[in-house]
């Protein structure tokens, strides 16, 4: 059984990096999916929320910024992003609601928004790359392979946040209102739900999640004005594979994609993996447009 040893040896790092990636994708993709389900639009500015979240946290936390410490950075960043989500919804989506070409207009307005914010970060923070401190320093050994404590935090935190979000959507009145709007806007309106407020809330949650993901990623990778692009594209793939309209599908698919990416990066290299991801994306869109668990 000699042949199995290298695979076993490879399995552990793959598992670890896969689960870290997957956790971040899940945070990004659920936000994207939440907005898609509730408002029926695809937010191309979602990746920039992530970038901006990392920058705001850096500004607040880092000694070269305000230097208020990392926890303040995280808290303020998520709050600022949530607020920005509401503002963007107000400026880029609300004015166009009701137009029958809203889906495609929204692609363009959110692309313009992303363009705006990306260049704003370049103006404000300059092109020099930055990095956030890790939430917890040090390493820990799990199943015989070393993993940084920060990554462990990501692995644990992401599912907790997602379960929290799921519980919020499932059991609170406001959460039910969001789901009601997602399922049937008109009857939600008839029931007296404030649809516009629901839209703002969905956008706020979505942007807050992306900002949080940005903070987590900003300590592993460098913060650059374009750092959100790749996670945004991954979030597209995750949401489509999971199936539009399915919360659980999105999360399952995030972990699936995360592991697939880690696995194939190990065996066929990073560049081919990215190409394969987009190939897979196109195949899923054509052959399985409802994704794994999407509803009709």
């Amino acid at each position, binding site marked *: 059984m000699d042949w199995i040893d290298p695979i076993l040896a490879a399995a552990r790092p793959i598992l670890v990096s896969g689960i870290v990636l997957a956790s971040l994708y899940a945070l990004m993709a659920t936000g994207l999916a939440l907005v898609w389900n509730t408002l029926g639009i695809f937010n191309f500015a979602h990746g920039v929320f992530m970038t901006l979240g990392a920058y705001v946290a850096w500004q607040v936390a880092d000694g070269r910024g305000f230097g208020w410490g990392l926890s303040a950075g995280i808290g303020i960043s998520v709050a600022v992003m949530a607020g920005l989500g509401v503002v963007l919804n107000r400026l880029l989506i609300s004015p166009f609601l009701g137009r029958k*070409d809203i889906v*495609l207009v929204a692609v363009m307005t959110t*692309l313009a928004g992303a*363009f705006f914010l990306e260049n704003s970060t*370049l103006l404000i923070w300059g092109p020099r790359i930055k990095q956030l401190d890790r939430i917890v320093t040090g390493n820990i050994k799990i199943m015989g392979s070393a993993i940084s404590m920060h990554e462990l935090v990501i692995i644990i935190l992401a599912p907790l946040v997602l379960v929290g979000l799921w519980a919020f959507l499932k059991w609170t009145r406001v959460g039910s209102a969001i789901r009601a709007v997602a399922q049937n806007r008109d009857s939600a309106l008839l029931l007296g739900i404030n649809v516009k407020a629901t839209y703002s809330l969905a956008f706020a949650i979505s942007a807050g999640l992306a900002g949080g993901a940005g903070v987590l990623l900003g300590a592993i990778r460098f913060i650059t004005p374009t750092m959100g692009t790749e996670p945004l594209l991954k979030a597209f793939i995750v949401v489509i594979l999971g199936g539009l309209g399915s919360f659980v599908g999105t999360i399952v698919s995030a972990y699936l994609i995360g592991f697939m990416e880690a696995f194939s990066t190990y065996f066929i290299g990073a560049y081919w993996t990215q190409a394969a991801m987009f190939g897979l994306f196109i195949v899923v*869109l054509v052959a399985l447009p409802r994704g794994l668990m999407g509803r009709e």
Partner: protein
Amino acid sequence: MMPKTSTLLWIATLAALVVLPLVNDSSYVRHVAIVALLYASLVSSWNLTLGFAGVFNFGHMAFFALGAYAAAILTQTFGLSPWLGMVAAIATSVIASVIVCLPVLRLKGIYVVLVTFAFGQLCYQVILNQRDITGGTFGIVSIPPLKIAGYSFAANTNIGYYYFALILLVASTVYVAKLVKSDFGRTVMALRDNETYAISRGVASAKIRLMIFMASAIFPGAVGGLYSFYVRAASPDLFGFSLITLGLSMLLVGGIGTVWGPLVGAATLTILSELMADLGPGRYLVIATMIVLVLRFLPGGLVSAGDIIARALGAKTPGVLAPRRAPPDRATSRDTPTG
């Protein structure tokens, strides 16, 4: 009969463009003019799928980038003549359009955006991946210039490239104008405006879509080839988000689904962006704001502004810049999502 004011205006513009290099040989003005001309043919051909066919094709810039790479690889690496490189660029672009179109035939709305966009990203990743052929993230540099009988197009402050770009633009404009007036063009627009009815009247929807994709891919290929010979480099940035956004904003600001709109948009945005060069990234903030404002308050783009002003002045004739067909809004109104 007096020729129409709009015809006169376009002839005057063309004449000015022909004379421009003879009266001004500043290399800066020349460069901006060439870029504007290239953008104009690029987005006016994009308009065929996005505007006239109403198919949300986000892969057009990838056709252009692939054309640039095809020309670059064949001439720089394999030493082919640049003119053959131009032909190869067009062929590559058209082949790419067929590949993109096949999955698109089955999809609608946002799914078309995502598939065509993913295609561009797929090409981008493959180009990064094939470092030996494409130069990876560095791209390809020192591409040979275009020449006719030993005369380099780069001589006399790129005057050859200027006129070639102008010829390309005139050709693409005439091509688009003729195409949309032809039976084929009408069929394409019928499919956009009422797909079910068009199909019931015997329009072969898949075949027409495929044809309009191929028809739209000729000029991005040519522009891609010319571009890589002009700047003498092909870089993976050509697949980026910003180029797509810039191209889209030219279409939208100028007026999507009209023959002249993309030209107005390309000229306006290229010149505006140069005038604001001192602002650095700040100019993109202005452009982004412009896109949203135009979408909000002038859905027909700048060309529809002429019409609105004319109407406000109480003129009976249609506005100077007014498109004769395709009222605003119509271009983007098809393809509502099914998801």
